[in-house]
């Protein structure tokens, strides 16, 4: 056995008890926590803020939680299993920076263990529907390079055609 008698493996590490991820859907980020059985998150302790320099986020919209009454902490709203925060955002640099969101949350195990507040920066991925809609509507700086490449190719091809015509003319 290990050096000291312990029950520590009765509990999950915080990143296993509370898994967080995000998805971009249109102009919102959906931040989702999957909560292990027997664990819960406090609604009041969830915070979502912008991490990217070009991003402004509105207050997170959270669903109603389950009321938990604790003789010492009073009435608290908690989430079990899963919770999703909808966070509207605005960007003002046409997408020059990846979207980064800072999330803070705090929770406990029903069996009697509480984790200190956890803060993470997440990189939300584009949702399938959102990617299909958002990609054409957002002008991207590299679109200019694509157009420039096409234009340059058009000019070069014109030159080739013109050069051929000059060479042809004496023989005409």
């Amino acid at each position, binding site marked *: *056995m*290990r*050096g*000291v*008698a*312990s*029950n*520590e*493996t009765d509990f*999950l*590490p*915080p*990143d*296993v008890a509370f*898994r967080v*991820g*995000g*998805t971009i*859907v249109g102009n919102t980020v959906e931040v*989702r926590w999957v909560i292990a059985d027997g664990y819960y998150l406090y609604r009041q302790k969830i915070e979502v803020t912008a991490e990217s320099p070009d991003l402004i986020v509105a207050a997170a919209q959270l669903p109603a939680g389950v009321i938990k009454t*604790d*003789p*010492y*902490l009073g009435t608290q709203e908690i989430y079990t299993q899963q919770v999703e925060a909808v966070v509207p955002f605005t960007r003002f640099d046409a*997408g020059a920076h*990846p979207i980064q969101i800072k999330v803070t949350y705090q929770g*406990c195990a029903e*069996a*009697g*263990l*509480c*984790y*200190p507040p956890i803060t*993470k*920066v*997440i*990189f*939300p*991925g584009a*949702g*399938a529907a959102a*990617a299909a809609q958002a990609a054409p509507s957002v002008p*991207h700086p*590299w679109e200019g*390079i*694509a*157009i*420039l*490449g*096409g234009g*340059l*190719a*058009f000019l*070069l*091809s014109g030159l*080739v*055609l013109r050069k*051929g015509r000059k*060479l*042809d003319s004496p023989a005409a």
Partner: protein
Amino acid sequence: MNSPGLRFVGAALIMLLGIWAGSRLYWVRNAQYHRGVPVPAGQASVPDPRDASPDAPGSAVPHAVVPDLLPAFALSDLSGKPTSVSTWNGKSLVINFWATWCAPCRREMPLLETLASEWADRGIVVVGVAVDYPDKVKEFAGRFNIDYPLLVGEQDALDVAAKLGMNSPAFPFTVFADRSGEIVALFVGELHRPQADLILSVVQNLNQNRIQLPEAKQTIARGLAKLAEQASG
């Protein structure tokens, strides 16, 4: 290149190459803006390694590496006076780490009060270590009339927790040491009467030389596992 047909094909190829190069640049560059894993609604994305803290576990749960002996440390008491753990040399210690925001920590305090008074004449001392702001702890201790000694600290208390093997601590957790400073048990989570009685009776046997340390640890480990089994069954 004298044939008009060949010239036309050459021009068309250059044009296509230019368009391909431009669009390739666009898509390669743009791919960086879609990092992360797209997931359908109603599911969480798989954990991204960039989202994880450095000590985030993968498949294995990291274990606390608890030292054999209580480390030397000093923290402030509620009046701000530095207090060394050596103050209780020769006593068995129940060192309970807690925080004011932690509901299970508050729930177990009446039990700790009871244990402190029940075991005082048998050389066992309960010491609370609050990892919190001193003002909050002082207010809390006054409101709930906590009689056993309390130490308080922020980063310095976290450093003590780390010395005890709890690098990213969750609360409460309690360390039990015998009178010679040997750490016998680490109990993570809210302490209940059966677990406390089990551990303290073994510590008492150890102090009275009725059993040796390895046997004491094994007895506690087996007892805790049995109690956990009963609780889940």
